[in-house]
């Protein structure tokens, strides 16, 4: 999202990591993990996100395993009612999030919606990243005509806006009666382009480094060089863009479901819940506010985690921290490079 088309380059000034880390002999992964832990907002976001995941999955159950919540998201109960949730003293009551107009328990519907959003997010974030990384790695490593062909294919897919191609594959999944998993796999297959471009740029510069030369002299195969030598060095870019892709996947899924081309009734989705109930805004506002709250929280939390990861992987982007706030503001800014590329990408 914030990666844009601009190159992400390290700041020329500021400390380049903690010297004490090197002295203590920590592994690279450990250093990054420690750096991530220093970013309070991201750690808290990750914690809340995990809580929401556990809560949503345990409430409605996974597959055949039933959850602890007494109502099903498909079963009709008595007539429509207002939320019974009270925070002080804390009590869930009979229908904590109320009921919709035909009497389905809204807590079960919202939890099921969160569950589906999370599935879509993980599959798009994971599978989209794998496809994008492989395409970008091969294009960047082999260059020449392989690069040209792969990048033209990327260009072809990138011309179609995400929501448009998403709606088309969503309609395919929907009219075929295919489930959430299949929908998210199809969506993942059309969301890998930006990662491919970023990984390719990273590979183009990494393949010129000495350690690649050394590996080649030692007789390593191309595959080994790509996956064992270069990819671990590009893992920062991959993980950060995977997180950002996951955040935009939530918005894509809810948007598509809102339009009617994503997840469909009787399955539940946060976007679908908004679409079904927006006309009842003035009479039963909770039907709007609960899914809205969770859409925004999920996307916001994932974005915060992504920013924390970006900091942890590339500390040179960060200036010295006088106050925690400054650190946050700084971390949230995209790094704009003014260095001229050799030519505009065609």
């Amino acid at each position: 999202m914030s990666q844009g088309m601009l190159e992400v380059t390290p700041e020329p000034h500021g400390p380049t990591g903690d010297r004490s880390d090197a002295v203590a002999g920590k592994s690279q992964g450990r250093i990054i993990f420690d750096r991530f832990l220093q970013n309070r907002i991201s750690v808290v976001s990750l914690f809340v996100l995990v809580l929401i995941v556990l809560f949503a999955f345990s409430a409605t159950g996974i597959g055949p395993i039933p959850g602890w919540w007494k109502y099903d998201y498909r079963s009709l109960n008595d007539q429509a009612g207002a939320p019974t949730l009270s925070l002080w003293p804390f009590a869930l009551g009979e229908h904590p999030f109320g009921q919709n107009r035909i009497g389905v328990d809204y807590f079960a519907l919202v939890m099921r919606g969160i569950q589906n959003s999370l599935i879509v997010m993980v599959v798009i974030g994971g599978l989209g990243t794998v496809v994008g990384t492989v395409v970008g790695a091969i294009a960047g490593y082999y260059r020449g005509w392989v690069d040209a062909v792969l990048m033209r294919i990327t260009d072809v897919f990138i011309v179609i806006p995400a929501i448009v191609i998403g709606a088309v594959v969503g309609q395919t999944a929907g009219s075929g009666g295919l489930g959430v998993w299949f929908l998210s796999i199809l969506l993942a297959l059309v969301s890998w382009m930006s990662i491919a471009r970023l990984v390719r740029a990273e590979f183009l510069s990494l393949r010129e480094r000495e350690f690649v030369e050394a590996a080649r002299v030692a007789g390593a195969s191309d595959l080994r060089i790509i996956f064992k030598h270069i990819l671990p060095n590009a893992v920062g870019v991959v993980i950060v863009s995977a997180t950002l892709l996951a955040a935009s996947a939530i918005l894509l899924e809810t948007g598509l479901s809102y339009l009617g081309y994503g997840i469909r009734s009787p399955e539940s989705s946060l976007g679908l819940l908004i679409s079904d109930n927006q006309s009842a805004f003035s009479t039963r506002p909770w039907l709007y506010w609960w899914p809205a709250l969770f859409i925004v929280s999920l996307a916001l939390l994932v974005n915060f985690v992504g920013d924390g990861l970006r900091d942890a992987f590339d500390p040179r982007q960060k200036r010295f921290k006088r106050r925690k706030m400054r650190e946050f503001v700084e971390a949230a800014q995209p790094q704009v490079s003014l260095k001229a590329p050799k030519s505009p990408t065609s």
Partner: protein
Amino acid sequence: MAAYIARRIGVSILILIAASFIMYVLAAGSGDPLRDLRGGNAANEAQLIAARVSALDLDVPAPLRWFLWLGGAAKCLVPFANSCDLGLTLDNAPVATILPTAMVSTLQLVTVATVVAIILGVVIGIVTALRQYSGFDIATTFLSFFLFSLPSFLIAVLLKEFIAIGFNDFLQDGAAIPAWLIVVIALVAGLIWMVLIGGSRRRRLIVFGVSAVATGAVLVYVSLTSWFLFPGLGPVGLLVVLAGVVFITTSLVSGLANRRALLASAITAAFVYIAFFVLQGLFTISSAFTLIFIAVAALVVGIVVGFLVGGSDRGQAVRAGAITGIVSMLLVFLDRFMQAWPSYVESGRINGRPIATVGSGTPGLTGDVWVTGIDSFTHLLLPTIALLLISFAQYTRYARAGLLEVLNQDYIRTARAKGLPERTVIMRHAFRNMLIPIATIVATDVGALLGGAVITEKVFAISGMGNLFATALGRTDLNPIMGYFIVIAIVAIAFNFLADLAYAALDPRVRVR
């Protein structure tokens, strides 16, 4: 350069053709175009199905049917032949005739949203960069994160429920602002100005006090006179606003110390002020073209005045005059629109609830250019806000990061070291270089906005291209889908191309191959 452009256009056309193939096959596989006929209970079902199959060549497999479609679409390239054939919809309407009307409302929406998002985003980004780590900066960063995580359909529902209904109720209740709201707005305005202007503690307190009191006074006046029911600047208000325009334009373009630029700006504003009285009669019978002509005339007057009084440093005076001319004339137009507001609100079709939540115009409303202009404004206001908020957040972040990056460059230090005033450093040296990366974002952003219009148009029931696409997809109506696709793909590719050219033109270090 010419070779580069030719090669780029060639590659773009190939990409377009390949993307259209993918889109065609995917869309064809997404459902059954005969579903509505099969489900219906018409007696002549078989006959209807046969008619549709032959009209749309449904018996040809999709990959081959794409060639038929491409053959028809290629005729659009023949200039002035009017032989465009984008196929038929399921209802046998030719796509080439329904597409242009839909295009107009979408492009209107997207253009306004893009321009407003760029201007607001860049201005706020610059301010946050210049006041780095201030409360305003932190608040803007939080806000941009929040906007990134807010889907447009959520915000659209909120805008409809609170802004539209709230403002309409407010007008019907006599347009009196409650006292607590006046106090809150005044305090917030005071805080914002205090942070923006900065300075010593004493100066901040003075700025806070003055701006809070001034805002409060204006709001009390607005509330007491029911200004929102009968808005207008009037001769006195316009004079005050024009003085403000002269002051701000000159201090941004050249600094108030440049007396000639100030003079050029002031004389231009005086001309516009005279025109305000002289042209009122013409305005009543104006069309949109007259207005464009008058605006251009004001621009020319500003340039000429700047040229005549410019003296040794003509460039600055010309710029000050031109900006003052066009902005002042737009304010005069604004005043005239405000004069037409009561007649719009009270007209039978509106019934005192002007802010609309659906459609892109009031059906059956007739009136002069002012009334129809207001009608477009009240209909497009909310969809545009819903559409621009996300890209606004993006521009803010890039403008801020870009300006901070530029301010770290050596040439900025040189400019400061040789004693240039801070205004010149920011406006002349930093601002222009900051715009280079922004140019590339505009290209990607236009594509995103066109996609976003699908949702916005659906929520606000605007019959634009996005709505056309969404409806057609639901019925697997292939030709409108492809018509929609071809338009947005061309726009997206063209903007990318323009961004690359702009990048090369703005930055001499970039050479095109």
